[in-house]
């Protein structure tokens, strides 16, 4: 068997303080090229902190206190900040749960998408500008040619989320970590965005770590599912198995709370 694209081993993250909080506790999972792993779990269970840790975006007092993040044969936790910058966006990109934490409020959204391409030397200035329009079109933002000139505050919540997705897709990285990427989208646009991700998976063998609490999205997208609870991965398995025969008590209680779940089975 070939090595997985991403191999997270015994990842442990603490927030120093009194008391110190262990937000991620000995978490291990793998993602193969082209695979989608759904990560679900309780609010506050450590999903976003896991995502941030993989990309080394944790801010102090948060720190990785143990484990490895193997990606394309290297442990990301040992790279220099400079090497890491070449990974972020180009090899692994992150769709942030809260777009406004990541978007620059005083920069036009088109320029922010173009910048993602320019930073990694993937396009000339004029190409990047044209690509920005294409990408906004791809995430179903109407009047994309005009919308590139908008600032984030001029967009609706769901449009900002789609700008984030466009930025993440810009460099066609082999792995995208998508943290609740469709919470602000209505189901028709959500379906189109998920379709787009599926196309990219088929075309470029894109792998996806999909953090979501929407079991409908999990059922449509994920190959495997991992369940987090209070900082630990409590269950992991193929999507059908997790949805139909959840083994862990927390997973069972979670599925029991999904409106309409019983009707679907």
């Amino acid at each position: 068997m070939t090595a997985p694209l991403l191999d997270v081993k015994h990842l442990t993250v603490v927030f120093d303080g009194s008391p110190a909080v262990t937000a991620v506790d000995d978490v291990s999972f793998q993602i193969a090229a082209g695979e989608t792993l759904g990560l679900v779990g309780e609010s506050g269970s450590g999903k976003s902190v896991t995502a941030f840790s993989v990309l080394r975006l944790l801010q102090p007092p948060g720190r990785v206190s143990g484990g490895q993040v193997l990606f394309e044969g290297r442990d990301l936790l040992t790279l220099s900040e400079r090497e890491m910058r070449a990974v972020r966006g180009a090899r692994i990109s992150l769709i942030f749960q809260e777009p406004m934490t990541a978007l620059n409020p005083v920069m036009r959204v088109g320029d922010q998408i173009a910048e993602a391409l320019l930073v990694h030397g993937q396009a000339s200035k004029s190409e990047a500008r044209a690509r920005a329009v294409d990408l906004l079109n791809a995430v179903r933002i109407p009047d994309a040619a005009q919308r590139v000139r908008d600032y984030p505050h001029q967009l609706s919540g769901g449009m900002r989320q789609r700008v984030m997705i466009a930025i993440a897709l810009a460099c066609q990285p082999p792995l995208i970590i998508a943290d609740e990427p469709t919470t602000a989208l209505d189901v028709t646009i959500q379906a189109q965005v998920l379709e787009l991700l599926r196309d990219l998976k088929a075309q470029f063998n894109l792998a996806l770590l999909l953090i979501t609490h929407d079991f409908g999205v999990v059922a449509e997208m994920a190959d495997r599912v991992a369940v987090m609870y209070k900082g630990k991965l409590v269950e992991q398995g193929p999507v059908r198995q997790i949805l139909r025969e959840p083994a862990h008590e927390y997973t069972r209680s979670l599925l029991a709370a999904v409106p309409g779940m019983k009707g679907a089975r």
Partner: protein
Amino acid sequence: MPLLEVRHLVKHFVRKQGLWRPPSVVRAVDDVSFTIDEGEMFGLVGESGSGKSTTGRCILRLIEPSSGEVLFRGENVLGFDRSRMRAARRDMQIVFQDPYSSLNPRMRVGDIVEEPLVIHNLGTRAERLTRVAELFELVGLESSYLSRYPHEFSGGQRQRIGIARALALNPALIIADEAVSALDVSIQAQVVRLLMDLKERLKLTYLFIAHDLRLVEHICSRVAVMYLGKIVEIGETRALFSQPTHPYTRALLSAIPVLDPDAPHERIQLDPAAFDRAAPLREIGTQHWAAV
């Protein structure tokens, strides 16, 4: 008399396009009317960018509408002066769609939740602190978190801080803009139970803006569907969900993800050219209107 009546609400944004291009106009809210009864959970759903948040912000005058009327208990709040408006805000609260930008990053979350009580001079300090701790517990957060700052929370925890703050004053109306969208299903169920309980006990009224149609179907008595600045369908939840009539509503309901990985999918594609965007709402059934 309904608690809230929105009449012909219009909000246009003018976007400057630089020196050489004419400004363009976004008709974010384009002649929207609806009423909400006291103690009702009214759902507002629709396409991303269709004007839901703008409608909510106009009702509270966080942005000034271009035209229209917003009657709260029969009085047009758009005519209120500053001090009247400040008093009215005690009764009308909003949970913002984006918790991160709506919470002051330099304030401890306990102070954030207490702030509305301070502004409206309610209770002694000790009483306020008791209330804040109680609100925290109600939304499923530990009171040991009260002295933390907003960035020290997860997305869903921040969202619950916004809910606690909106509930602090016991308002009459809450505009809940995607207020539970970041919560896992079990905590979401807990928060929704809380909102429903307050509705029953205190006749709290909600404008519930959401993308989760299963949830809306479950908890709202009436629903309006927005598309490109207009309400294209409105009615009692059961009627609207069982007989969606506007092409957009049909496409929307057909796109709800199915919980079974093996279920076949019949999604209705919307053809925007196939319907008249200027069509007025007309009654198509009991308590059910559509712009067809």
